[in-house]
């Protein structure tokens, strides 16, 4: 399971910059990120090389932070690649809260981060259906 760091952000100029600066100052490397935003606030979701340290330094800097378990899945970087994974999830009635994708530099595959209701069951389903779930250590060092 991969640990994602989520940060609450007000919709104000400079908020994202200051979060990333805190991380940079502590030599924490961002592997992937996504932002969910509403008219009033945003939620920054981060995959970093050292989630525990990131959690600590952001908290110390006064942010509202939480750790969330997410699943990183390798998806063939070809047309229909993601559709196949989503089909499998649909068949197994796995509810997706949200997802975001990025392209790794080490392999030919795309990586998709899933937040699901029941991550352990999702991992089981992926394993039995031949979908490659990435180990957390591998994700942090991408």
């Amino acid at each position: 399971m991969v640990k994602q760091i989520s940060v609450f952000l007000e919709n104000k100029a400079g908020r994202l910059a200051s979060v990333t600066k805190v991380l940079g100052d502590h030599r924490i490397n961002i592997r992937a990120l996504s932002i969910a935003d509403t008219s009033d606030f945003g939620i920054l979701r981060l995959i970093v090389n050292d989630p525990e340290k990131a959690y600590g330094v952001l908290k110390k800097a006064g942010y509202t932070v939480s750790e969330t378990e997410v699943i990183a899945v390798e998806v063939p970087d070809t047309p229909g690649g993601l559709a196949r994974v989503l089909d499998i999830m649909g068949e197994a009635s796995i509810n997706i809260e949200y997802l975001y994708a990025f392209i790794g530099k080490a392999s030919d595959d795309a990586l998709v981060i899933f937040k699901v209701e029941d991550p352990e069951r999702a991992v089981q389903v992926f394993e039995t259906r031949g979908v490659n779930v990435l180990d957390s250590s591998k994700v942090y060092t991408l």
Partner: protein
Amino acid sequence: MYWNQEIECMPRKELDELKLRRLKETVFRVYSFVPSYKAKMDEMGVNPGDIQKLEDISKLPFTTKQDLRDNYPFGLFAVPMTDVVRIHSSSGTTGKPTVVGYTRRDLERWAELMARALTCAGATRHSVVQNAYGYGLFTGGLGVHYGAEKIGASVIPSSGGNTKRQIMLMQDFGTTHLTCTPSYALYMYEVMTEMGIDPSELKLKSGIFGAEPWSENMRRDLENRLQIDAFDIYGLSEIMGPGVAIECPEKNGLHFFEDNFIVEIINPETGEVLPPGEKGELVLTTINKEALPMIRYRTRDLTSLNIEACSCGRTHVKMSKVLGRSDDMVIIRGVNVFPSMVESVLLNIANVEPYYLLVVERRNNLDELEVWVEVSEKAFSDEVRKLEQLGKTITRELESSLGVAVKVKLVEPKSLQRSEGKAKRVEDRRQF
């Protein structure tokens, strides 16, 4: 124009004699019939016989809103319930609301004072008074209503809201006097404009506006736009309701009705009585009320007194327009909102911490209340849906408790000022 010239223009000496007689009688009555007053006076070592001249009033204890809450609902009443014919209550629903009662004579006197106020603002038996103050537990609606009936005006009890219908009534019934909050009057003007109605085609002559503070700028706007004379009326339910003080045509202060109220200005920090002209907190004592006499009630309204003779002929003391509050209460669309009410609502919602700020703005002449709430770690979620749900829960709880519409904004932790003795809980951006 006077409703009761003999009283309203009474020479100072006679007026003071009348006040002293009524003060003595009131103090004797509360000491005899209201245990909480007796206990306070005994504790201070003062008894009714110590009140020999008007200045002796400063020997008496203050009464606050908290006293009303502590004695909820009827503990401060000085008459048996069989003599109480009307009960009103404050809008505050967090903790206990404040409850006020009236005997039949109290209602008659209230109507008399409202009649004086309306007459002062130019209303007569020929007038058509449209009363757009809310009818109900709020004292505004019924208070104005009976005064307007007393002078023999034709009263339209339109109550608040339904603005297009208000304007239709104004047109069709020939309203000459409008009574409502000043912000609602400005809003009515906007709706009139949208409806293509020119206020100069209406028969409107004057407006009697109160229940919230308003400035000289707002008077200018109201008078120019609606083409009326705008008068400020002051009142509070704890003392009586509307009709405690009214602006005369001089429009440079509000006359109290001193035959019913003793008026003091105090330093809100020390409680010391201040001389006329100095700015401080308004303290009122009722001296002509049966059901709920109030001794030195701290209104928390800031103002100053003017005892110079007024060219309108009234001899009763004037106060300047209310300048603000000595506590952090805000009045939003006539509803009293205390930060403490917001706090207790937040404390009752799981995982929400009581770090908040009330931001009040006036948009399109209507007051809007935003409540900024810090998102604590426990309440935070990485899912938008859950945070939005949190915002909705807070909104719903606040609205049902405060009785006004609220917009909740979630903000980052530590972004709001922390309490260092006196935290800033209210940011009032309105221009009065």
